[in-house]
């Protein structure tokens, strides 16, 4: 369902649809970005608040997923800059991850940890490209970067993640 025109009467229905479709994916992305479940929930709520307020401005120039992802990433970046983050323990250890409700392989945890331990600039490009399937061009537009910068960051990040998948440990 593409959001183009937003009749007043349908706004709430559209919101409900967007939340149902993208909440979980965006929550996970926010968590990987912010490395904190409560902050991720706050960021998620803020994302949908912003999206709801700007439904009318969305003109279908991209998919709604890309649109929401951009809002979410910018929200996460704002929270990342918050002074409170200075008091956040920047170390990430497996026991800080939420308890999984399904079985997972050790490699899954290692990959998640590796993403969370990436420097934030690499982390955001990984999340946008490999998790949210955005193209280099879309990412460049979203982050106000050149395509070559995005490509370089992706190259560096994917090298580190490949090392984890192949060797199981990041020596970065």
């Amino acid at each position: 369902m593409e959001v183009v025109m937003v009749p007043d009467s349908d706004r709430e229905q559209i919101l409900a649809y967007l939340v149902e479709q993208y909440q979980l994916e965006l929550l996970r992305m926010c968590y990987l970005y912010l490395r904190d479940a409560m902050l991720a929930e706050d960021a998620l709520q803020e994302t949908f608040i912003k999206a709801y307020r700007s439904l009318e401005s969305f003109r279908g120039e991209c998919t709604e997923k890309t649109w929401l992802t951009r809002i979410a990433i910018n929200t996460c970046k704002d929270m990342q800059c918050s002074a409170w983050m200075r008091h956040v323990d920047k170390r990430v250890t497996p026991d800080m991850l939420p308890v999984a409700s399904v079985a997972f392989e050790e490699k899954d945890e290692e990959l998640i940890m590796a993403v969370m331990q990436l420097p934030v600039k690499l982390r955001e490009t990984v999340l946008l490209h490999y998790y949210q399937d955005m193209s280099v061009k879309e990412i460049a537009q979203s982050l106000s970067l050149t395509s070559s910068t995005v490509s370089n960051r992706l190259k560096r990040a994917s090298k580190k993640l490949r090392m984890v998948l192949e060797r199981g440990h990041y020596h970065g």
Partner: protein
Amino acid sequence: MDEKYLRDRLHHAAETRLSGLAPDPWLTQRVLSSTKGEEKVKKKLSIGFVLVLALVLAAMTALAVGLSSYFGGFAKLEDTYGEFEQWPNSAKVELTQLMINNGVLSEEEATKWTGGLSGPEKELLADEILAAHFADMTYVDTYNAMTRELGPIEKWTDEERVLYTSLLEDYGKLTSSWPTYMLPGDSDLTREEAVARGREAVLTMFSVSAKELDSLVVDAIFSKDSVTLENTPEDEPFWIIEFGYGMAYRAIMTRNGEMLGLMGPQTQYIPWGVSTMGNAQVATPSDHDATREQAIQSSKSSLTEIVNLSYEEVEAMDATAHFFYNDLYCYGDEPVWLVIWSKQGKDQWQVLLGYDASYLDAEPSGKVFDQVVRRHTTLADIWRERCGEIGMTEDFRDANGAYCFDWSLEDKAAFSAAWRPIVAEYLQKNPYAMNTKDVMVQRTRNIHAIPDEKAISQEQALAIGDAALIEKYGDEAIGFDPFIFYIANDPAKPEWRFINVRYWVSVDAYSGEVLTVTDHVEWERTTNKLFGGVDDFIAYVFE
């Protein structure tokens, strides 16, 4: 490994490992409520937080209501707008009003504010007032706003610390890097009592004078998670009394004042009641250790030259010497000599020496040692000083930033050639360096070399190794992308070694015969070594 694989893998990892992140069935409603002018709906407070807040509110005698309102308001603005420098003018106006309402600003500033100003004028004035008020702060945030009004945190009352903890928790910022401060209850020691008891314990067990100890800044922390030591309670708060910035001395006790342990400037944690020899593992001196007589002579010199006892005083005492390992001294990596000097059967002095009879510390009987590490140059010190000679950095990276596992064969060979002799010479002079599992010792264990003309090429060797892996482990081993080594521990039988976190393959460099095909599970089982991750496995091969 292509892009699709990485993408699929990341999706799979998020779906499984983060499956505990659950969607919120009420999110839509909360968003709608927020955008309809209602206050942003916060998550329900945890019961623990509610109780803490109730206690804080009930104990407001120590903290002016106005200040708590100011701090809470500041925290809320910070949560909304982020870094102070990025606050919009409206937020600064709101903060200024808050400060005036709660008596934080001076009368003069408050008078200026209420002079019938227009909106833009107020914004300008707010900027000016706040810039002046926070001028001496390098960073403006809630914590620093609190220290501005209350002083450094060691001067805060328990209620003020709990308030800060509650503000962190309220905005989802409380993490393991910050203690969960709590309020002592009626049956707990008061802060004053805990400080007094900690002071007494430190003065009893360490040689520090009362004058020196009392000159240090003191802080008392009542929390349940500020530190985890071997005998600290798990789910109850306890007291930590810290003397001195950098925590020169620490006294840890239960909420009721039962001593748990102490720490000195250089010591490990010393559980209360552990004797000087503690859990000693008695040893027998060998050729590279000082003899008993040397130890006694060295301790005698220490008592006269460092402790300044007279020769006659020392001669009037008897010495007994003990040689042992103890985790409290030299991290348990080296044995130590402990020489106890007694007079008429009563212990007077104790001297702690290294295995080589070098002086560590001397204390009157009954005191604990606070200098417990032998002073010497380590291999790490030598590496830091000389790593540039082979073009490497202190953290084992080459000029391109590649970590040692990824160095070229030439660089690995140069490292071996340069550092095996240095390490061998060091070990001769420092026999216990092996116990420290020093990384330089590990990394010079194998001889890295450059393939000669008789060796098969790296590509050939890798192809052989690859095939052997797939034959043994099947499809799982496809895509093997290893670290590469050429090891010539036996010059007549050099080998190519390929290893990553899962697999290790060795191929005879001359004949192409497969020497080893294993994975970390099998390796762990056959070597009885615990697999601690890639470092252990690769370290064993590389190092």
